[in-house]
């Protein structure tokens, strides 16, 4: 039986792991390669590396770090942050990334999704969608959730799937950093409407939040950062809990 995936996210700045509350206040949480190895050994199902300053600073994610990670770990990982061209993708996949994630670049030029999917296959193209509630409606935001767009989140999710995205990484900016639970309703709405997997992100605070997003939220995977980095929840402990709750989990 296909299992639900637990995905620690390592936000990277200057080659170090950081995670800020609502992306503003950054805290140092260690060496990404070592942290990646620990998570892989502990039973994380996948990893995501996001160069969170990349879009703002127009920097490219360090291929060197990607290679070090690829050599060290035995589970799949995704790299995102500032990726905008087919060449960027080729560069990172050759460095050892399994998937790449694009966000602002897809919003600015949706055709890039089709191009990347055609060139490398849908399986390695993750489209990250940062969403925020604006007067009761869900709108896509870019630039770490700071810049609103006119795109409705649900419609955009459908469009990126139709254009060839292999997975959607849906981050609720309203929930991110709150530790009050994932955006279960929106995640369920999008997951039910699409035939591709949806990774839920933003708001994980307790083990029950993961259960909720896999059941009510119909998520295929759940991503979190600080609760793992600061050992508030251990991955073996979380997986044990979810298995006991009847969620299909890799042991």
């Amino acid at each position, binding site marked *: *039986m*296909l*299992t*639900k*995936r637990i995905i620690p996210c390592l936000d990277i700045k200057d080659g170090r792991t950081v995670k800020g509350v609502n992306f503003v206040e950054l805290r140092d949480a260690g060496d990404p390669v070592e942290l990646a190895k620990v998570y*892989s050994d502990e039973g994380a*199902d996948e990893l995501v590396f996001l160069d969170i300053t990349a879009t703002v600073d127009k920097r490219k994610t360090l291929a060197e770090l990607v290679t070090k990670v*690829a*050599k060290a770990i*035995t*589970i*799949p990982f995704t790299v995102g942050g500032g990726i905008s061209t087919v060449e960027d993708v080729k560069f990172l*996949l*050759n*460095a*050892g*990334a*399994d998937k790449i994630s694009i966000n602002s670049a897809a919003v600015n030029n949706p055709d890039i999704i089709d191009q990347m999917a055609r060139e*490398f*296959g*849908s*399986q*390695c193209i993750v489209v990250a969608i940062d969403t925020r509630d604006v007067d009761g409606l869900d709108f896509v935001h870019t630039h770490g959730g700071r810049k609103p767009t006119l795109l409705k989140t649900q419609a955009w999710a459908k469009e990126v799937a139709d254009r060839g995205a*292999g*997975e959607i990484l849906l981050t609720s900016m309203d929930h991110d950093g709150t530790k009050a639970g994932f955006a279960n309703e929106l995640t369920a709405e999008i*997951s*039910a409407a*699409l*035939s*591709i*997997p949806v990774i839920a992100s933003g708001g994980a605070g307790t083990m029950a939040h993961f259960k909720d997003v896999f059941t009510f939220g*119909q998520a*295929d*995977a759940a991503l979190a950062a600080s609760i793992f980095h600061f050992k508030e929840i251990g991955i073996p402990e979380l997986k044990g809990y979810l298995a006991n709750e009847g969620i299909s989990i*890799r*042991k």
Partner: protein
Amino acid sequence: MKTAVIKYNSGNVQSVLYALERLGAEAILTDDPDEIRGADRVIFPGQGEASTAMNYLKARKLDQLIREIKQPFLGVCLGLQLLCEHSEENNTGCLGIFPVKVKRFIPENSQEFKVPHVGWNELENLADNPLLRDLPDSRFVYYVHSYYAELSEATIASTHYIHDFTAVLHRDNYWAIQAHPEKSSTVGEKLLENFLSI
């Protein structure tokens, strides 16, 4: 002992090389027929679209080489599908090592079963085979695919998604794995280690 990894414009080639490096194997990345013929083992880590991959092999006359090769040969992911007879993906004639058809997953309920099949799923119904020896008790491996090989006499392990499908194939000197052993933690490492000792 040298393992040739067939060079191909596919994202997982590098990952396969790193996995072999972790196991201490001597591996070369090549699309040169003589180098491939001269290796002790060959791995074809395909990923991507079937007809493009077949055209790539034909353009380098690697299709004939793969059919004639005598060394232990391991196809991975799309590499498994290309060793079959035919793929529904763009109606592609494949190498025909295994008389098996490759079909697209068609879920009856698209909310319950998404396509592609992405994530960790279990190897089941394992045959007694050197590739599958001494695997850890937890047999989860990592999958990313929209097409699958039907069950056949050459199937030596299956996985369930929507229905049972072929997880591992074996015939003569050819083995093939639909999942990504290079990304499948300890189970994947053991599968590769087993292949390296065949």
